[in-house]
């Protein structure tokens, strides 16, 4: 009798029948019924209605029946939490069973039932099982801790399971060790900052010993864990490498790849002069090649990883070109990957062989593969200069085949070859022109047109050729239209006499008949250039082009280094960091290679910082609030706005400043507007020009307050004072992983009396986002959005939108801790997300914050001395004048300046939006970069934040 019959019952009313059978007295019938239930469950039928009846079958000594019931429970417990409690007793009882297989089964299953009420009962049995005498139970319990942590992390910590798990790393049984390592690694991933795994030379030694003894899977867990360790010096790195290299001969490819990961990572720490370094390099090649004789799916994973490895260390596989030759029967995904690696390994030594192969591939059947092969020939030409000529002739041979897509692809790559070796292979143009009619793909057409335009002077009938394209101008794709426009202008500049008509035709087509703004703009630019200054036009249009480089398709080095840390994993298959495809906080810890040792190579990976040591700008975690936002806020957020000071060039001069400021502000990195005392009045006009129209330029012209007063108060050039309120660079407030793909970064600005929150919304999810709305929690200064969040169009994946949200200060007030904390809720069509951020206090300094002199004196005396707070501003290399003009830009006004015993005393005032006055005395000693700031205010709690605002403004 077979089990397949259970799949065939489809008649109505079967639930009732099953119910009856489940309650039957006969054991066999019961078992049959449970099997039927499981079969229905598998094909997706809802059999949750049978829950009580199935659970009733649980109390049995028949292990097979028990396992089936457990399977059912794992599936449906979540939908029937109250009923699931009924099962608890049996579980607890089973955890005491004399048979270790049953104890393990019970604890394993219990961990899979994700019902809160059950987890409470799980703790005691789990604690016992973690210390069970039988290793089989212990190894199961170790994984169960990870399960429980996934359901209720707090519970696991409170119950001290983490410590027990750590103890299991020293267990005598290698499989228990391996599972404990796997569980700890997983838990540690969700707590990147905690030092859970606590890897040190002793524990590493234990792991390396267990490595020799445990199953293939256990070896993978241990190697993956080892890869996260940072050896303290090169000797330790070497000794670990020595103990890991035997794994390269394991039959399991995953063990091999994980070992390769450890070696590639620790190799960074070894000096290249070391003999061992060379030995290691040699040892790595054979196992990598062997991976290519595995099953095709594994070959694919291996090839994707080899692609990274040859980019990082090309020397490892430089002699192994032949193994990457494509076999006729390879699956297409293996073929395409092999081709990629062949190009990376191509060098002068092997180019002849490679070209012969590529030519062979270009005659294959699969269109994508053929195209890639043709493209590869072009890349070889660009990469290996000596081979260029041979490549070109190979391409010409391929063009002769007249296979449509081969010809088109060949023309595209020949264009690239021209751009790398100008004026060398023009002889082939004639052949190319013969194939003009067969080109139907935009990329190929555009490439051909570019060639004709670029070499117009050598092609007798260039005008005819281009004219032929012009007939169907409006049906062409934008790419072709743009290229055609440029090519005809080039032609005109080269042969002005015969082609005047043609150029006029194309310009009018582009500017008058086209709806495409890019095309129109380019058309107008050419038109004006040609009409105002043909000589300049010639210089612009026919300028020498930069040569294209060979390495355009390489992975960017920082990403490459990160991916090397992920060898063997999905990240290395996708060539994307895990954060790009993993949801939530798991596995998104940024990994980096160890810093390179040896002075000669220090430049190779300057960005690599030791893992674990958080970057210095890491913000302090914002303290959790007692309200409903608390939990959400307890995650670390991006740097708060008042955070890291931007380093900018000390004092920039006139023109440079104009551009620098304008550009910087466009990129959201602006530090400060041009400094009035340096650039003077011409800068004002210039600033206006450079400022983008949207008003993102922070440098606003805050009118100086009565130029005459300047003299009175000893200010040297109050007239020219021109400065803007400091705007911090945009910081990530809400990382995409915490908001289902929505990333929000932003900053606060104050311009001419109005505060706004500049936001950058990025959609990193796969679906379109819409229906955005924003709300602030009550806060200390009543900040509130003055207008709804306007996102005009739905945000499609990978799109970013910049929004300036005007704020007012008439919202409801509640004192926050810290004072400048702002809790924000953002809603979109997916969900509501919460984050909190600190705003810099200077956005609240109002423009009429200048106090009368007499008033200042009176208020200063009036405020009790207890309210005075003193601060040190360190390392500020500015002089008194620069300081006061800088501060004035942020509405901190200097009322008087006095020189007392060689020290400059600045008396300043400012007013907050809620009317609180703050008075300040700033003591500056010439030559001493440390200032002393005394603040007096009736609400002393703001002093601290005012001081921070001073720091921020002065140092940026």
């Amino acid at each position: 009798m077979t089990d397949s019959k259970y799949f065939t019952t489809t008649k109505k009313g079967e639930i009732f029948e099953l119910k009856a059978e489940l309650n039957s007295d006969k054991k066999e019938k019961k078992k049959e019924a449970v099997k039927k239930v499981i079969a229905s469950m598998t094909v997706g039928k809802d059999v949750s209605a049978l829950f009580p009846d199935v659970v009733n079958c649980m109390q049995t000594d028949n292990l097979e029946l028990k396992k089936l019931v457990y399977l059912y429970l794992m599936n449906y417990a979540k939908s029937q939490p109250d009923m699931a409690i009924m099962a608890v007793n049996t579980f607890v009882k089973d955890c005491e069973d004399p048979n270790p297989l049953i104890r393990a089964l019970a604890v394993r299953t219990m961990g899979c039932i994700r019902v809160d009420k059950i987890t409470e009962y799980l703790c005691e049995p789990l604690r016992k099982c973690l210390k069970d005498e039988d290793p089989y139970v212990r190894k199961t319990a170790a994984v169960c801790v990870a399960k429980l942590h996934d359901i209720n992390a707090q519970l696991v910590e409170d119950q001290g399971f983490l410590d027990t798990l750590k103890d299991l790393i020293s267990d005598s049984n290698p499989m228990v060790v391996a599972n404990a390592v796997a569980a700890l690694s997983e838990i540690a991933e969700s707590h990147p900052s905690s030092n859970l795994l606590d890897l040190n030379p002793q524990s590493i030694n234990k792991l390396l010993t267990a490595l020799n003894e445990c199953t293939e899977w256990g070896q993978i867990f241990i190697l993956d864990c080892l890869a996260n360790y940072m050896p303290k010096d090169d000797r330790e790195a070497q000794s670990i490498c020595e103990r890991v290299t035997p794994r390269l001969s394991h039959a399991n490819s995953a063990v091999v790849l994980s070992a390769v990961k450890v070696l590639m990572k620790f190799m960074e720490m070894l000096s290249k002069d070391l003999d061992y370094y060379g030995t290691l390099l040699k040892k790595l090649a054979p196992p990598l090649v062997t991976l290519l004789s595995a099953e095709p799916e594994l070959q694919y994973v291996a090839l994707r990883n080899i692609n990274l490895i040859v980019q990082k260390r090309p020397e490892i596989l430089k002699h192994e070109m032949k193994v990457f030759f494509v076999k006729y029967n390879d699956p297409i995904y293996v073929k395409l990957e092999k081709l990629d690696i062949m190009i990376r390994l191509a060098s002068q030594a092997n180019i002849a062989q490679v070209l012969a192969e590529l030519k062979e591939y270009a005659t294959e059947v699969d269109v994508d593969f053929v195209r890639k092969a043709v493209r590869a020939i072009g890349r070889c030409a660009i990469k290996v200069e000596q081979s260029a000529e041979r490549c070109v002739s190979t391409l010409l041979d391929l063009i002769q085949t007249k296979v449509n897509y081969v010809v088109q692809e060949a023309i595209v790559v020949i264009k690239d070859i021209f751009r790398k070796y100008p004026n060398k292979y023009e002889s082939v143009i004639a052949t190319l022109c013969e194939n003009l009619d067969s080109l139907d793909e935009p990329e190929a057409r555009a490439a051909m047109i570019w060639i004709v335009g670029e070499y117009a002077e050598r092609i007798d009938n260039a005008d005819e050729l281009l004219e032929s394209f012009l007939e169907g101008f409006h049906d062409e794709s934008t790419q072709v239209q743009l290229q055609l426009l440029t090519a005809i202008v080039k032609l005109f500049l080269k042969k002005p006499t015969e082609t005047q008509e043609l150029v006029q035709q194309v310009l009018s087509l582009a500017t008058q008949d086209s709806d495409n703004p890019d095309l129109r703009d380019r058309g107008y630019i050419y038109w004006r250039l040609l009409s105002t200054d043909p000589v300049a036009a010639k210089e612009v249009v026919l300028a020498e082009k930069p040569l294209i480089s060979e390495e355009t398709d390489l992975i960017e080095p920082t990403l490459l280094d990160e991916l090397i840390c992920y060898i063997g994993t999905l990240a290395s298959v996708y060539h994307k960091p895990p954060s790009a495809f993993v949801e939530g906080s798991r596995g998104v810890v940024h990994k980096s290679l160890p810093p390179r040792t040896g002075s000669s190579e220090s430049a190779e990976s300057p960005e690599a910082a030791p893992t674990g040591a958080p970057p210095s700008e890491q913000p302090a975690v914002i303290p959790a609030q007692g309200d409903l936002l608390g939990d959400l806020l307890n995650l670390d957020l991006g740097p708060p706005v008042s955070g890291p000071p931007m380093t900018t060039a000390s004092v920039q001069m006139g023109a440079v400043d104009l551009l620098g400021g304008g550009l910087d502000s466009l990129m959201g990195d602006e530090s400060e507007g041009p400094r009035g005392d340096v650039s003077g009045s011409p800068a004002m006009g210039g600033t206006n020009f450079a400022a983008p129209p949207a008003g993102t330029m922070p440098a606003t012209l805050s009118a100086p307050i009565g130029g005459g007063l300047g003299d009175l108060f000893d200010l040297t050039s109050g007239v020219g004072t021109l400065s803007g309120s400091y705007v911090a660079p945009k910081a990530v407030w809400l990382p995409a992983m915490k908001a289902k793909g929505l990333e929000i970064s932003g900053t606060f600005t104050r311009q001419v009396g109005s505060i706004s929150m500049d936001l950058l919304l990025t959609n990193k999810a796969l679906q379109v986002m819409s229906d955005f709305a924003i709300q602030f929690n009550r806060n200390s200064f009543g900040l509130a959005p003055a207008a709804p969040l306007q996102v005009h169009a739905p945000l499609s994946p990978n799109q970013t939108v910049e929004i300036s949200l005007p704020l007012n200060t008439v919202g409801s007030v509640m004192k926050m801790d810290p004072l400048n904390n702002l809790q924000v809720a953002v809603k979109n069509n997916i969900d509501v997300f919460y984050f909190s951020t600190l705003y810099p206090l200077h956005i609240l300094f109002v423009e009429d914050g200048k106090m009368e002199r007499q008033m200042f004196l009176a208020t200063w005396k009036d405020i009790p001395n207890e309210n005075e707070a003193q601060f040190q501003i360190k390392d500020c290399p500015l002089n008194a004048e620069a300081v006061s003009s800088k501060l004035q830009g942020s509405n901190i006004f200097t009322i008087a300046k006095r020189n007392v015993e060689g020290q400059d005393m600045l008396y300043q005032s400012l007013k907050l939006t809620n009317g609180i006055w703050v008075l300040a005395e700033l003591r500056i000693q010439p030559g001493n970069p440390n200032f002393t700031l005394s603040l007096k205010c009736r609400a002393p709690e703001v002093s601290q934040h005012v001081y921070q605002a001073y720091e921020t403004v002065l140092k940026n």
Partner: protein
Amino acid sequence: MIGGLFIYNHKGEVLISRVYRDDIGRNAVDAFRVNVIHARQQVRSPVTNIARTSFFHVKRSNIWLAAVTKQNVNAAMVFEFLYKMCDVMAAYFGKISEENIKNNFVLIYELLDEILDFGYPQNSETGALKTFITQQGIKSQHTKEEQSQITSQVTGQIGWRREGIKYRRNELFLDVLESVNLLMSPQGQVLSAHVSGRVVMKSYLSGMPECKFGMNDKIVIEKQGKGTADETGKSGKQSIAIDDCTFHQCVRLSKFDSERSISFIPPDGEFELMRYRTTKDIILPFRVIPLVREVGRTKLEVKVVIKSNFKPSLLAQKIEVRIPTPLNTSGVQVICMKGKAKYKASENAIVWKIKRMAGMKESQISAEIELLPTNDKKKWARPPISMNFEVPFAPSGLKVRYLKVFEPKLNYSDHDVIKWVRYIGRSGIYETRC
């Protein structure tokens, strides 16, 4: 880690569905069916990402096995696990087919519960699994000793072998199975050639025998021959350079790394002891010399000569030469000196079969291919001529030198073990371009 594992039939119906992680929902089952099984084009990658969920799949006949995850898992491990899963299933019920899977679905669920815990692969050696999971249902009536024996085997250092095995006759079989791969240019130049070999051992040995395997590995021979110079010269010829080798998990890798000696306690029955690859001094058993001539636009003349290149006393078997023909072939006339040749229109090839052929011989086939005139501009791709054969020697030159067995606790010695060694060389991808 692995979040779920699904098995589908060719229609995309789920046969087995086991979810290990909360982040994988029922919709994942459908997503894979819609996007991969029912996809219009050919599968372009064994890893597919659909809405932030990654699917790994392998196919066995018309059955799809898919592992699903939302995390950054070890991709190589997932595939290794899927292959292992297939091996385990095959060891329990033979061929992986829809029928067999449906017939054994309870067993499969049980296995999945055992070998994958929370998505982490656990001991998956069939030898160990079979001690407590059987097709007849679970052996629940174990004695206490048996129980602890099972658990210590499943978790122990020697998870692949149980204690207390007894045979009246201690016997072992060693098969050296090689597949020789070749890619040759039409001019007879070797573009690439390598041998991938496997040493498969079938052992029927009592107790916990300690085995040591020796072969003519160049590094070992040179190490040993250091004392006597002339011996090095002599044995240098017979030894082979192994590019790389991998071992079954029973082999002590650290010992191989330090001393290059292969020592292990074997699983009972059949297993693959090692895999290796060589590229130097390969004996290519056959040479294929193609000659293709296009006569006008409607006719092709093909002449192919094969030469055997090994000792005349040895016999090659199951020889098959496959000569591809263009798609627009209308008729073929073949004449061959030996064996049988047929034009198979459905496979677009002439298949020439020879049952046996001794070494140092030569044979020839000539064919005239009539073509239909076409307006298809695309040239015929001329796929390579491929060959299949089996020869009774190892093309890499590998020789087994010894396999010593020690079992100190039982009273049988190395001499009492009956040992058999066999060499089989097969064609892998053996192609000559024409």
